[in-house]
């Protein structure tokens, strides 16, 4: 993150940029499709900039809607429109401006949307590789008459955001009794009560008992914290709500109206009690209760390996899409998947938002 100034080799005018993601079948061929980047496509990128520049810097009182965002391009050498990277500009009402860099993969979901259109029209075959590049078009000055060209702020001015509810708790008090699971260096610290973890795993693996096995899961409740000493922002998972009436299939899990009704009713009830008033949905877990695709082929190194790395723990395109829809503007949210390795052993992975994707990350277990 670069504070208060743009990098020396950049000169950003007061205008803004529109973007397309161009898809190619071969790297050096002309594009076969140009998919426009919509305002909603940038929400994750802007949310992550908010998280890193404000929430994790001891400023949780700065709301997402207090900021004006722009996505700025960094061009490939010799090109006036092809991006090699992008940068999010976050501006407060007093003019204070922060910059957060990112790669063009933050717009991967736009490329996926474009690829789906190509598959529908028969230009691309499912599973066929393709290439994409991000093209920026500069609008020299902001046109006050056009909302489309204004820096993105909060979408429609009629949208209201619930103020962020968080507790001020010293991070050290949690870390002193925490046990790390996986790599916890990057990302917002996530703490999970051991009893919550156990319930989450039980809910996720419940579908393994069906014949044939199906996916099952839960939403995870918890509270958000801000450390008064370090300024770090963090998540504490405290409870799960098992999914009622969800449609459970071998490789999908669908929340129905009854599922959502039960979640909302349970959460409302818990928010009445003083001890759980600050709870909210902070993540979801589900079970990939199936063996990895490679399980029917014996690994030639199986006997020599202590652990099996072929697992069913992964984030599917649908997992990512669901998470983007449900946890819009909540970059701290997580997706925990419980699965199997090729030997049938239990494995799990926690995934958090990074650069618009869900990337595996570690967490802390606490008593």
């Amino acid at each position, binding site marked *: 993150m670069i504070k208060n100034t743009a990098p020396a080799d950049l000169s950003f005018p007061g205008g803004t940029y529109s973007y397309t993601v161009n898809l190619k079948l071969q790297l050096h061929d002309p594009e076969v499709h140009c998919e426009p980047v919509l*305002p909603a496509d940038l929400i994750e990128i802007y949310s992550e900039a908010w998280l890193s520049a404000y929430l994790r810097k001891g400023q949780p009182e700065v709301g997402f809607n207090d900021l004006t965002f722009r996505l700025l391009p960094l061009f490939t050498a010799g090109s006036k429109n092809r991006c090699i990277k992008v940068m999010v500009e976050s501006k407060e009402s007093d003019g204070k401006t922060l910059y957060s860099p990112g790669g063009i993969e933050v717009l991967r979901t736009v490329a996926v949307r474009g690829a789906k259109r190509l598959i529908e029209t028969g230009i691309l075959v499912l599973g066929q590789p393709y290439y994409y590049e991000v093209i920026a078009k500069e609008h020299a000055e902001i046109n006050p008459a056009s909302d489309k060209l204004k820096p993105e702020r909060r979408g429609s001015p009629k949208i209201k955001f*619930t103020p962020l509810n968080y507790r001020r708790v010293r991070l050290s008090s949690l870390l002193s009794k925490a046990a790390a699971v996986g790599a916890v260096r990057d990302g917002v610290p996530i703490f999970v009560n051991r009893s919550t973890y156990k319930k989450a795993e039980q809910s996720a693996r419940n579908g393994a008992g069906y014949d044939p096995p199906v996916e099952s899961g839960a939403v995870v409740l918890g509270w958000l914290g801000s450390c008064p000493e370090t300024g770090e922002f963090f998540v504490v998972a405290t409870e799960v709500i098992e999914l009622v009436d969800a449609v459970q299939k071998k490789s*999908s899990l669908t929340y129905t109206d009854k599922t*959502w009704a039960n979640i*909302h009713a349970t959460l409302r009830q818990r928010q009445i009690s003083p001890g759980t008033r600050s709870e909210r949905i902070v993540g979801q877990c589900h079970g990939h209760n199936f063996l990895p695709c490679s399980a029917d082929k014996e690994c030639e190194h199986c006997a020599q390996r202590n652990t099996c790395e072929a697992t069913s723990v992964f984030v*599917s395109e649908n997992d990512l899409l*669901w998470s983007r*829809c449900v946890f819009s503007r*909540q970059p701290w949210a997580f997706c925990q998947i419980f699965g199997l390795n090729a030997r049938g052993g239990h494995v799990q992975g926690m995934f958090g938002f990074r650069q618009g994707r869900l990337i595996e990350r570690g967490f802390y277990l606490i008593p």
Partner: protein
Amino acid sequence: MSNLVSTLVSLSVHDVTGSISLEKENIQGSLPVSAVASSLASEMQLPQNVPWGLRNDQTSEFLDDEKPISEQIESGTSVTVTPKTHLG
């Protein structure tokens, strides 16, 4: 049908986690719920790669995507804009 066309509906809309809300007025009552939900999701800058539905907060039930919205709820009703997608 002409009666339907002239009906305008107001809705209190929020997302599934209750963090974003919107008061929307003058929605054409003859529009199918799927079109209204998609428009509301767009206005709330929610992802456009997915179909959206509306859940009546009073009954907790999804509205029928294909039927006109004014046939299913009264003006002023609170609804949740909900993604119609699944985990995989």
